[in-house]
């Protein structure tokens, strides 16, 4: 059950500099997963790391979108079609079902687990606004994918880059107020750097927005026994990775402030 199931890589797509989407099939995950849940990805001989699922397709097809930031992610990004990875999951709680009008905010690779949610909104025919933030055009994933999804409603998809190389120059949070004022969102979903999420959280508190964010902590077991992924009283691997705004209230002392490393030491996020 919690044993990595080895599967072949079916296809690899480059999303941006150092960011790749890796396709594979796994029936068990595919049959159960809800957008926002995560999986554990085993790179034999290297490491096992948590990953969001950026594609939930037909015939058990799934994908992860990986940003190379260290050994495991670099190895993942250097794999080729036909190579194998192991997967187990899905784990944790995903996003709640979309409402009639939804806002999705992703920071960089943080957009990964939000893609299947956006696709769900489109499929169900409910309104969805997407805000994607990145550092620069060639370091920001999903621009093309999302542009094509929103071909017919381009105004629903906005991109911000820090250097202005694409879309609005600045941070996603700069555009938040404008979009929120024009809409009445039943759900606001966000995933990305924790400091960005904290800002969105502060704003959501102010505006009473029904926010849900996906957080990251050091995941080891993934099944809720090892105590590696605590954020306050919550285990990211069981009660998370998605937290609702009322839960974020309870962890406001740590959320965006402190994380823990592999040893469990407190690390400041600032």
């Amino acid at each position, binding site marked *: *059950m*919690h*044993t*990595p199931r*080895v599967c072949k890589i079916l296809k690899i797509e480059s999303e941006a500099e150092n960011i790749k989407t890796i396709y594979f099939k796994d029936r068990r995950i595919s049959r159960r997963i809800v957008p926002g849940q995560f999986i*554990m990805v*085993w790179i*034999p*001989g*290297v*490491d*096992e*790391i948590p990953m969001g699922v950026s594609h939930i397709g037909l015939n058990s097809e799934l994908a992860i979108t990986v940003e190379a930031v260290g050994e495991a992610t670099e190895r993942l990004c250097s794999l080729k079609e036909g190579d*194998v990875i*192991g997967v187990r999951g899905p784990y944790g709680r995903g996003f709640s079902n979309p409402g009639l009008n939804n806002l999705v905010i992703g920071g960089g690779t943080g957009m990964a687990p939000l893609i299947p949610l956006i696709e769900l909104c489109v499929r169900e025919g409910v309104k969805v606004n997407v805000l994607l933030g990145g550092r620069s055009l060639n370091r920001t994933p999903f621009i093309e994918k999302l542009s094509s999804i929103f071909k017919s409603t381009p105004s629903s998809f906005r991109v911000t880059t820090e250097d202005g190389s694409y879309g609005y120059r600045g941070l996603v949070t700069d555009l938040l107020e404008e979009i929120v004022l024009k809409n009445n969102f039943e759900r606001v979903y966000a995933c990305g750097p924790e400091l960005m999420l904290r800002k969105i959280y502060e704003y959501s508190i102010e505006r009473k927005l029904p926010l849900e964010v996906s957080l990251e902590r050091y995941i*080891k*077991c*993934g*099944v*809720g*026994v*090892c*105590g*590696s992924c*605590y954020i*306050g*009283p919550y*285990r990211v691997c069981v009660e998370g990775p998605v937290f609702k705004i009322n839960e974020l209230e309870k962890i406001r002392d740590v959320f965006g402030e402190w994380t*823990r*490393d*592999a*040893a*469990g*030491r*407190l690390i400041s996020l600032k």
Partner: protein
Amino acid sequence: MASLEIVLGSIRLANPVIIASGILGTTAEGIKLLYDMGAGAVVTKTTTLKSKPGNPNPTVVSTPSGLLNSMGLPNPGIEEMSREVAAACSEGVPVIGSVAGSSINEFIEVAKRFEETGVVGVELNISCPHEKVGLIGQDCRLTYQVVKSVKDSIKTPVIVKLTPNVTDIVEIALEAEKAGADALTAINTVKGMAIDVNTGYPILGNRFGGLSGPAIKPIAVRCVYEIYESGVKIPIIGVGGISNWRDALEFFMAGASAIQIGTALMKGYQVIEKIKRGLIRYMKKNKLENLNQIIGLSHKRC
């Protein structure tokens, strides 16, 4: 009426369901939550002097009716851990500090620091099957030395956690008692491994790991029974594969004075209250007032 209160030497607990070391006992809030969920006490993640990142992932893999883990004792070091533990203790949680080290001095130092935080006891982890400390619990002389040294250095009760990965667990148990141990915990995990047959790789980053969960229950019950049968005078804390109140009873009857649960928490915190409710129901049905009435019962049956 039926009371779950138990006494382990000088440690008195409102109920016998203790959270095993390495299971979620890593932070103050985590420890507090386990207590709020009904635990009689919480053993911390095993702590060393300096921080340790633990072994590379995968550190956990399922096996039939069990879990193999090779966490590798990740912990933030006693400095940081003692802050977490102090916070939990100050809220009234009975915490047991799990201690390990690569030298006798390290054991002493960590135990002392735990003592300062107000723990109700320390548990010496000389039994982790995939770590060096595990070698101590496989050797009578080392066991004696480590236990004696810690006993001589602190006043807090010292519990010694034993490994089943030995030819004769009784021998080690008697040695720990002789060295002054106040209680024994049996058992730590059983050394095992799992191989992925698609790639040939051992799955765990550390290759070897420790088996826990229902698969090892018969081994753990046997160990508790053997230790009790040997005439050890100090209380035994039974652990290994306990998932429900019937499993817990099996350990009490084998001779345990309290139990710990680990892997069963995978199914949710409710398992704690479920075990307690089951025990109370059983005691009422059988008109028992306290658990002492059944501790070691099986030994009278042969």
